[in-house]
């Protein structure tokens, strides 16, 4: 591939529209009070279903890793089925199922054919593993050992080292600061009781959301959402997260590691999902480093100088301000030059950028809208985000209008308000040709 994105921002790209490309999002609440997000997509005989909880690693407390561990243990036992029976049932149906946790959310996702003899048993088992799980000591011990091996392996992966360090330095003692899967020390201490307690508190109807996209009609979707949430206790929504404190001054850190490239990031806290300035920040970022080969960073760092294979930037809006981040990797001997070029490019961009570049990027955002909603999985991703972060249902249609309205001044104003190049975090992992210096 000629192109890559070093850091993936799950929801970073949201976009504009043309009148004819409308997504009909429907929403309602189940009897238990769970929000449902639904789009009818009748063309293929398949459906994507997601059960999501406000139960990401930001809810770990001192038990770093418990949120991720809880999500991973779902599907390992219920009162009626053991681990092998569960996997055999899903596999025999050809159904894909998986669970995962991030910082804000934990979720279980299922993709199934919509034929009754497949979908009905699949949904029954889906509801069973999510609302009646049993957490067994033996399985927990086994999964803990596997996770510990993975965590040790992370200590020799430069990308992982960089990412863990970024969240730690950027968020200090905020619940976003620690790694989603925990650390060797904290995971070692986790017990079955910790997992049970976490599950009991957060896997409740009031703290859940159901997303359904596929060839099931509204009535069927209602039945599916009811069945999924019927056996969940009502419970309570998770409490609001604290505001993170932004960096007060520039910080830099190098982690020495014998890789052939230096893995680099320049970062700061950005904005939360729903911030009114996000539109202008997003548009600007698309131009700076968020749109691959159309972007300034790619032009300066890769095309003009050949320093990298990939360079990108992005905002990662979350429940509270998520990071803004520029990332790249380059051979150790050009780390210094790459750092300088990135900083110059950001500074120049925040000073001014050509009008024709702004027009080109607007054109990309408006014209590219249909590409963002051309599959069930993309639509499911968007409506899940819109529901979880309480965005307006017409968010997708609103976006292009916002894009069209924004002027260069709007973009620059938002960037200067939120991004402070003199207070950013610079991280490097590798053997860069630079020395850290105290001022």
């Amino acid at each position: 591939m000629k192109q890559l994105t070093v850091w993936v921002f799950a929801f970073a790209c949201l976009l504009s529209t043309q009148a004819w490309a409308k997504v009909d999002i429907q929403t309602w609440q189940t009897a238990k009070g769970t929000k449902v997000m639904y789009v009818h997509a009748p063309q293929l005989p398949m459906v994507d279903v997601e059960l999501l909880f406000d139960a990401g690693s930001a809810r770990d407390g001192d038990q770093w890793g418990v949120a991720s561990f809880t999500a991973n243990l779902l599907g390992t036992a219920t009162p009626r089925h053991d681990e092998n029976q569960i996997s055999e049932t899903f596999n025999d149906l050809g159904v894909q199922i998986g669970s995962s946790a991030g910082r804000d959310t934990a979720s279980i996702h299922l993709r199934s054919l919509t034929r009754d003899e497949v979908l009905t048993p699949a949904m029954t088992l889906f509801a069973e593993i999510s609302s009646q799980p049993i957490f067994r000591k033996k399985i927990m011990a086994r999964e803990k050992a596997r996770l510990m091996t993975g965590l040790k392996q992370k200590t020799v992966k430069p990308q992982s080292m960089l990412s863990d360090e970024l969240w730690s330095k950027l968020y200090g003692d905020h619940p976003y600061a620690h790694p989603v899967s925990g650390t060797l020390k904290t995971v070692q201490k986790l017990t079955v009781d910790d997992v049970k307690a976490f599950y009991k508190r957060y896997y409740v109807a009031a703290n859940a959301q159901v997303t359904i996209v596929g060839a099931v009609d509204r009535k069927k979707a209602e039945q599916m959402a009811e069945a999924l949430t019927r056996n969940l206790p009502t419970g309570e929504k998770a409490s609001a997260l604290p505001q993170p404190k932004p960096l007060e001054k520039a910080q830099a850190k190098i982690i020495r590691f014998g890789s052939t490239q230096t893995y680099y990031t320049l970062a700061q806290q950005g904005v939360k999902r729903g911030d009114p300035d996000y539109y202008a920040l997003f548009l600007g970022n698309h131009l700076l480093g968020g749109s691959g080969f159309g972007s300034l960073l790619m032009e300066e760092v890769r095309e003009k100088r050949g320093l990298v294979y990939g360079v990108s930037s992005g905002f990662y809006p979350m429940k509270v301000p998520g990071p803004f981040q520029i990332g790249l990797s380059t051979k150790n001997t050009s780390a210094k030059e790459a750092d300088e070029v990135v900083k110059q490019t950001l500074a120049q961009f925040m000073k001014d950028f050509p009008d024709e570049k702004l027009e080109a990027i607007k054109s990309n955002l408006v014209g590219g809208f249909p590409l963002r909603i051309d599959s069930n999985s993309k639509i499911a991703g968007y409506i899940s985000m819109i529901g979880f972060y309480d965005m307006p249902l017409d968010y997708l249609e609103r976006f292009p209008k916002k894009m069209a309205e924004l002027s260069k001044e709007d973009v620059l104003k938002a960037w200067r308000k939120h991004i402070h190049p003199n207070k950013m975090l610079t991280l490097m992992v590798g053997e860069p040709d630079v020395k850290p210096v105290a001022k």
Partner: protein
Amino acid sequence: MVRIGWFGLVMALAWPAHASISKFKLDNGMQVLVKEDHRAPVVVQQVWYRVGSNYEYGGITGISHMLEHMMFKGTKSLKPGEFSKTVSKLGGQDNAFTSNDYTAYYQVVGNQNLEKVMELESDRMRNLVIKDEEFQKERDVVTEERRWRVEDRPGSKLYELFKASAYVNSPQHHPVIGWMSDIRAYTVDDLQHWYQQWYAPNNATLVVVGDVDPQQVYEWAKRYYGAHKPETITPPKPRVEIEQEGERRIKMKGATKSPSLIMGFHAPSLVTAKNSQEVYALSVLNSVLDGGDSARLPRDLVRGSKIAVSAGASYDETSRLESLFMLNITPSEGKTLEEAEAALWAQIEQLQQQPISEQELKRVLAQTEAQYVFHQDSIQSQAMILGSLVSIGLPIETYDNWVENLRQVTPEAVQAVAKKYLTRDKVTVASLLPNGEGAKSSAVPVMEGGVR
């Protein structure tokens, strides 16, 4: 670099969305395939050239991939970078990929922009301009790509060494991206020659999937791609892999905390097989070992005996040259690579001694059927399957017939291929061992200020 292993099947009962594929051939020999999908006003154009790393020889390895990079660097009428910028302005996405057997270019755009991207793509089929300055910079980019993909990932490096050991004289010996010293030694002439030799309409297939009218696509294809003259295509010399006579074993040390192992056996692909039913049997065998959580490797080795933290199998049924049936394993802490390898052999012996169950066979078919529907959610994935099949010389019907062929596979046939191909004298084993190195984070404290 893309591998397409898993096709689905069609339950003919299935579904009206099972769209027909329109096939055309231009006078200059270029093939055109169009598949309609009207779910969204979006279309993907892919142009596939029958050239990839398996067409290369020593000294210029990776040149197909390098040329892929240069294809974005301008033509007689476009400045460097202008191709992508134009597609971006149209709201489109574009990229390219190189594999062992092919190189392909694609754009995804709103359907009103299809003609424009066809015009652009046809221009660079024959009118590329390779300038030294652009070439030098882009070669640096490719070396960074190699560092990122391979040099800093012990697992990728091991795989590269594994393939170089499993294949001696076949071009599958070398990596798609090429060896670093070969990358550094390319010249503009090498690229110019490679371009002229392979990028011609009669060595290419146009695949279009999306909200389009096939007849209209054909008209545009004639207008743009039809304008080019065909080239004399000389196929590469055979270089058929020598017979393996005894086990091969290598070890590598790298920055890893867990040792791991890859084991592989030469096996036929649909292109090379004398009896294609063997390929379908191997495909079933692969799924029995590694098709979901209930497959044998995760069930027996990760959850059952807990000897491994992960274990898997893979097999590329659609390679143009001979394929490999591969197994990999990462032992649990406290278990050795020898014990992990023995556990894989025990799995193989079980497959050789006892036929798989009817239930396992049924599971493979159910999963394949579902996959067939799921993959249609993406127009890209639909186009990929068509393009890759044609580029290795298989009929596009291969796809529609896939499940039907899997249905012919019996437990005895699976047992027979396990006995025939997974033998100790034909194995290549590559082990990765920790070199003891790690990060030295405590050596450098956080500093205020900047990095000089």
